[in-house]
């Protein structure tokens, strides 16, 4: 009898311990941060201030692999992860699947004033806020200011300059052309600047209209004429940036984070690079850049939602974002930090990048975006390698997309 009592006591203690440990800890899934020490310091501060322990689940760097892992966990109603750092293009998908929680009660519209409008809008699906922007990115044009005095105002001008000044082992324009999300981004930026859209407000597919065809034709001709080296068909961000850093390209499209890599010590093009907004199509409408970035969201299966929210609030408030901006060069999502002297001293280029962010656009907000993008990736790549004409490629993509994107 005594033995049973003893066992019960131990079991009760264990259960209590278990409950206590669970209540006092929260799990955050995210990729390895640029400077993990900065991140760990922040999380330590959070633990000290709140008494809530943070467990990190480090994800693979590839965004596709993260998506796969998240989908596996969420579709399996995994309760062990409370907070996910998600690519902004997944917000609508995860929200629609019921995987992440609406946050309107926790962060009412009146408390969102300092957030930059574009990143904030990308965290909203069907009028509800589902995530809080942690850091942001936008597409930019990098150019060799030692060889090109002023950045081109239009895409046509860029093509002319690239064509005329390339040679001697230096290519004209290097972008991301591998069959993956990056290719879609490069295309969308051209499409938008040419006045086109993928989807109309009613869900109608506008992708294969005239703007789409001229935008894709432009990319195809860049590769076909050698203005962009043929190798771009196999490049993602890293490979294309490498070309530019080696001094082998006049123009380069990349995200804002590339700026700090260009200026890093040992860079062959340090001090020779200018940065500008992506060109306009016709010189009248401004150019369009894609918005990138990562948001924090609470898992619908989390049992520690209040603790999860406190972590999100901590990591997205001005103090933490400032630490990330100074320590890692991450672009903050709060407008006020772009006027903060300490932030600007560490990142003098932020003032210029802010301009790019103002014009940045988010990719179509639909639960089917990853699927839509997958269709586009194949079709665009097919046009780039010449297996089909731009018009054919876009027509077939539009037909395919129509089978799953709902019409309103």
């Amino acid at each position: 009898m005594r033995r049973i009592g003893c066992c019960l006591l131990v079991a009760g203690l264990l259960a209590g311990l278990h409950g206590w440990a669970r209540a006092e800890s929260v799990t955050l899934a995210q990729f390895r941060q640029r400077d993990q020490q900065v991140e760990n310091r922040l999380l330590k501060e959070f633990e000290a201030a709140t008494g809530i322990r943070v467990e990190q689940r480090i994800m693979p760097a590839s965004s596709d692999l993260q998506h796969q892992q998240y989908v596996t966990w969420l579709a399996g109603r995994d309760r062990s992860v409370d907070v996910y750092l998600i690519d902004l293009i997944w917000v609508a998908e995860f929200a629609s699947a019921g995987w992440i929680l609406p946050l309107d009660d926790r962060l009412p519209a009146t408390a969102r004033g300092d957030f930059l409008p574009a990143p904030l809008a990308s965290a909203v699906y069907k009028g509800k806020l589902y995530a809080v922007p942690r850091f942001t990115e936008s597409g930019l044009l990098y150019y060799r200011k030692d060889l090109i005095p002023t950045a081109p105002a239009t895409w046509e001008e860029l093509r002319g300059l690239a064509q005329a000044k390339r040679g001697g082992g230096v290519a004209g324009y290097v972008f991301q052309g591998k069959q993956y999300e990056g290719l879609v981004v490069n295309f969308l930026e051209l499409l938008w600047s040419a006045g086109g859209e993928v989807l109309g407000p009613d869900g109608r597919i506008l992708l294969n209209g005239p703007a789409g065809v001229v935008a894709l034709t432009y990319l195809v001709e860049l590769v076909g004429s050698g203005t962009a080296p043929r190798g771009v068909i196999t490049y993602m961000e890293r490979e294309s940036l490498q070309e530019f850093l080696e001094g082998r390209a006049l123009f380069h499209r990349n995200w804002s984070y590339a700026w700090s890599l260009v200026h890093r010590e040992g860079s062959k093009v340090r001090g020779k690079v200018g940065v500008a907004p992506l060109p306009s199509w016709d010189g009248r409408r401004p150019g369009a850049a894609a918005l990138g970035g990562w948001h924090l969201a609470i898992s619908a299966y989390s049992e520690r939602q209040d603790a999860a929210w406190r972590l999100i609030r901590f990591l997205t408030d001005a103090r933490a974002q400032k630490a990330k901006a100074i320590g890692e060069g991450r672009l903050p999502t709060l407008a006020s930090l772009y006027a903060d002297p300490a932030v600007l001293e560490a990142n003098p280029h932020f003032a210029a990048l802010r301009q790019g962010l103002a014009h940045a656009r988010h990719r179509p907000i639909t639960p089917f975006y990853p699927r839509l993008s997958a269709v586009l990736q194949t079709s665009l790549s097919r046009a780039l390698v010449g297996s089909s004409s731009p018009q054919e490629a876009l027509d077939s993509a539009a037909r395919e997309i129509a089978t799953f994107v709902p019409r309103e």
Partner: protein
Amino acid sequence: MRALYSAPALGLVGAVFLLPVGQALWTSLHRVWRQVPHETPFVGLENYRLLLASDRFWAALGHTTVFTAGSVAVELVLGLGLALLVHRKIRGRGVLRAAVLIPWVLPTVVSSLLWGWIYHDRYGLANHLLLTLGVLAEPRVWLGDPALAMAAAIVADVWKTTPYVALILLTGLQAVDPIVYEAAALDGAAGARAFRHLTLPLLLPSMAVALMFRTLDAFRVFDLIYVLTRGGPGGSTETVSVLAYQLLFQDLDFGRGAAMGILILAAGAMIGTGYLWALRFARGAG
């Protein structure tokens, strides 16, 4: 009583094989789009019909067939050569046998990244070698050309899995009693004749095993392709497993993804049965 003895085995098979397959089968008969979690209507064979009616499915099956036939055929020939080489009593045989296995021991993701750099248009070893040797006049973008990309993937696979084929064939070679060769030599059969009439027939069972394993593996190829090309350029290297992955994890179309999985399973079963049947037939004839 006897049936009871097999119960644990049956239970295990049921739990780890039949149950998941049953669930996949069930899912494949519904429209399950994770983006709309509350509508999962029964659609019968619609997912299968959509797949079989799409060009993409047949293209993927074609790419998979080319990849499988190409890589397995080359691996068998090279693997046989390699097995014969390390079977001989030569100096440093132990070291050689170990060295041969290195590509196979590397995780596929690692060797795929390695090959990705070998194929790089600017810094890659492939272009460097071929340009230096004068085989090429100008660098090629190996993974940027639909015709070359598949060949490049096959070469990478051959590099990685030839040792595996060689290993299986080597065990086959070592199982042959040397007396057989001595007897043949006495009867005047040596060299090429002994190889043709003794080695090959005696190796047949090992070859069949190697072929079956490799065919099934190659048919389900995923990691190599995913790392090298992601199925590109222009979908030209999309294999059935890459397509299934795409349907499940990118499109979140679980119904069609499950249907794809079932089709791959059926194809694998057909390949396996085909080999077993051929092997039995060959044995019966011999």
